[in-house]
């Protein structure tokens, strides 16, 4: 149940049921999310300062999006000037074809990849396999997940669904000469030995991009394990893949975003490594890649960009704070969503990428409690966007900007709201209904089993509040 799918709505209910029934999984996520929330809170001790910083983060991202086409042109221009070759990919297939072509052109054999959600989004590993290449994930979590033929369950901590015993078993079985141990340092040491060898031998390194600075043509990449630096400096060819929304206007925009990203994501003041990549090895330099490529990925982003409200989706800096604070994500884990981006941001991104006919049901797995919106470092109004997508899911308006709109509409539900509206816009009728409900409270038909399976039946009071108020008025006059 850990594969990504283009039809996450299919069997969503089954995945939810299985996830909720998996006590070990729930324990893992509860522990990890609590830990991450506490760490984040400790990094932002002053609520007012945090709100000011979030204002700044949102403004920087909004300003970049407002001039997105121009900034992308400028980025391309500055990158070329720096010796970075820029490629435009409209779809996931385009991106995979470009990357495969680049690897073939340099006769690449051994490929390592730093952690990148954009490459997960386009299914790069599968495409490379189909083209006869194997690509080794070099982030420890991604490495564990890849070795187990799984997919990441969190955008920052891909193997968060796994406990150390299961990783110990996996390493002992799959890595030669590895004794079983649950000692975390030893386990990491084992992984590192494998990865070190792979870095030394790699001829192509693939990475993501956290921010691309249009002003200077600089690619910024943050990470904690050094694998990002290794993947982008050791192999002769470096291919960076980024969603085209990740461009920012100028270098001066970076500090505030860096004040927000690691703290929101992992509760770190700063990541162990901050890579600023401004081109391939120069003539007078003794190391670094000989070629640097930047693949700019659209994959549906232009469509999201076209709608004023939905455009806020593209502010995202992929910190994962929304999922860390989502009570639904905490209970389900990432795999139940069946999507590359799980949790609140996934519930907003995925229906827009795959269409509401394939991913509209995801938007229902939300109580609109607002915890995600409250912590988003760039103030994406996630609950509003989830509700908006619910609306587009049942909207019969042919001008709806979201693909698959109206495909979540069910006759029975539409009828219920029609009747509901008829009653609630006619106060005398409403009073009649509430009068009957309160008088016949012992004989009402039972509520849906979905409610009563876990709760005592609801029973109306013997008189409605409106009736009480009328009696009160009568007594007074």
């Amino acid at each position, binding site marked *: 149940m850990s594969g990504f799918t283009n039809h996450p709505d299919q069997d969503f209910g089954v995945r939810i049921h299985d996830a909720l029934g998996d006590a070990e999984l729930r324990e893992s996520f509860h522990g990890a999310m609590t830990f991450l929330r506490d760490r984040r809170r400790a990094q932002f001790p002053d609520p007012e300062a945090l709100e000011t910083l979030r204002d700044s983060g949102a403004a920087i991202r909004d300003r970049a999006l407002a001039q997105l086409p121009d900034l992308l042109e400028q980025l391309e221009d500055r990158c070329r000037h720096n010796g970075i070759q820029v490629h435009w990919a409209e779809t996931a297939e385009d991106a995979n074809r470009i990357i495969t072509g680049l690897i073939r052109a340099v006769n690449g054999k051994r490929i390592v990849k730093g952690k990148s959600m954009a490459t997960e989004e386009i299914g790069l590993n599968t495409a490379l396999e189909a083209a006869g290449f194997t690509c080794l994930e070099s982030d420890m979590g991604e490495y564990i997940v890849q070795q187990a033929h799984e997919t990441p369950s969190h955008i920052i901590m891909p193997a968060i669904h796994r406990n150390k015993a299961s990783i110990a078993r996996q390493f002992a079985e799959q890595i030669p000469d590895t004794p079983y141990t649950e000692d975390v340092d030893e386990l990491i040491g084992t992984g590192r030995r494998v990865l070190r060898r792979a870095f030394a031998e790699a001829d192509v390194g693939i990475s993501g991009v956290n921010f691309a600075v249009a002003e200077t043509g600089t690619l910024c990449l943050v990470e904690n394990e050094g694998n990002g630096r290794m993947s982008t400096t050791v192999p002769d060819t470096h291919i960076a893949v980024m969603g085209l929304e990740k461009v920012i206007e100028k270098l001066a925009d970076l500090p505030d975003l860096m004040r927000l990203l690691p703290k929101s994501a992992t509760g770190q003041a700063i990541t162990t490594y901050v890579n600023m990549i401004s081109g391939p090895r120069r003539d007078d330099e003794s190391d670094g890649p000989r070629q640097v490529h930047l693949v700019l990925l659209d994959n549906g982003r232009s469509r999201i960009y076209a709608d004023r409200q939905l455009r806020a989706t593209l502010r995202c800096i992929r910190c994962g704070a929304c999922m860390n604070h989502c009570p639904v994500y905490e209970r389900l884990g990432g795999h139940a969503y069946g999507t590359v981006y799980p949790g609140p941001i996934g519930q907003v991104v995925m229906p827009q990428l795959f269409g509401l006919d394939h991913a509209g049901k995801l938007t229902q797995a939300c109580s609109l*409690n607002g915890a995600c919106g409250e912590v988003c470092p760039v103030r994406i109004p996630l609950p509003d966007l989830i509700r908006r997508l619910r*609306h*587009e899911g049942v909207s019969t308006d042919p001008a709806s900007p979201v693909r698959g709109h109206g495909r979540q509409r069910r006759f029975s*539900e539409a009828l219920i709201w029609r009747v509901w*509206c008829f009653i609630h816009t006619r106060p005398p009728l409403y009073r009649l209904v509430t009068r009957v409900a309160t008088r016949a409270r012992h004989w009402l038909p039972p509520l849906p089993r979905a409610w009563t399976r876990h709760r005592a039946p*609801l*029973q109306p009071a013997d008189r409605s*509040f409106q009736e009480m108020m009328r009696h009160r008025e009568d007594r007074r006059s």
Partner: protein
Amino acid sequence: MPGYCMNSPAIQRVYLFGTCLIDVFHPAAGLASVQLLEREGIEVVFPEEQTCCGQPPYNSGYDEEARAVARQVVRRFSESIPVIVPSGSCAGMLRQHYPSLLADGPLADAARDLAARTYELHEFLHRVLQVRWQDHGDPVKIVMHTSCSARREMGVREDGLALLRQLEGVEVCEPESAETCCGFGGTFAVKMSEISAAMATDKCRAVQATGADQLLSSDCGCLLNIDGMLRKQGAHLPAEHLAEFLWKRTGGDTP
């Protein structure tokens, strides 16, 4: 956001928006709200022509149906006096969502005006009226559940707690993970009933772990959810709307 202008001429009249859940399930909380306001010398106008705020269809994406109900609320509560709502989520609907829901119609200005004079009951009692109360009850330990809309959309968590803290005999506590949703979420509780139940189960455990004698909340949806599960489990933790509790503790007669 409404202002809390203490120097402006004293407020003499307010509307009460009763909410449909209070109307049908917790009428005593509605009456207590009226009485708490009247005791402060405020005249409470209760338009008979009110039903619901439109939140159920709105959160389900049925904007047209929600809009029809919202228009009716804006028209019926048109006098320029505060609108008091004894529920964080319904108050949030009026204050935060009506302006955008009605932005494109003839009631756009009226909706913004209504939003600006909408208050959650306890916010109004604490911040605007700045009530001072004497406790008349026996010592009791209560656990307060603040709804997500009261906490986040309205930012009034402190108001409910501050009012409770005025009562000498009341020991106030919050459950562990107080900021986590109880799993109600309106139609979410039925559409995603398994997730909702998992969330409610955790909330029930947390409120019981406090060892409190009573559970309070200022939102009926959460109360119906948590209390419904506690009763199903056979737990002995009576639940009450905050307004009703406050009214009884401060010397009000039982309605």
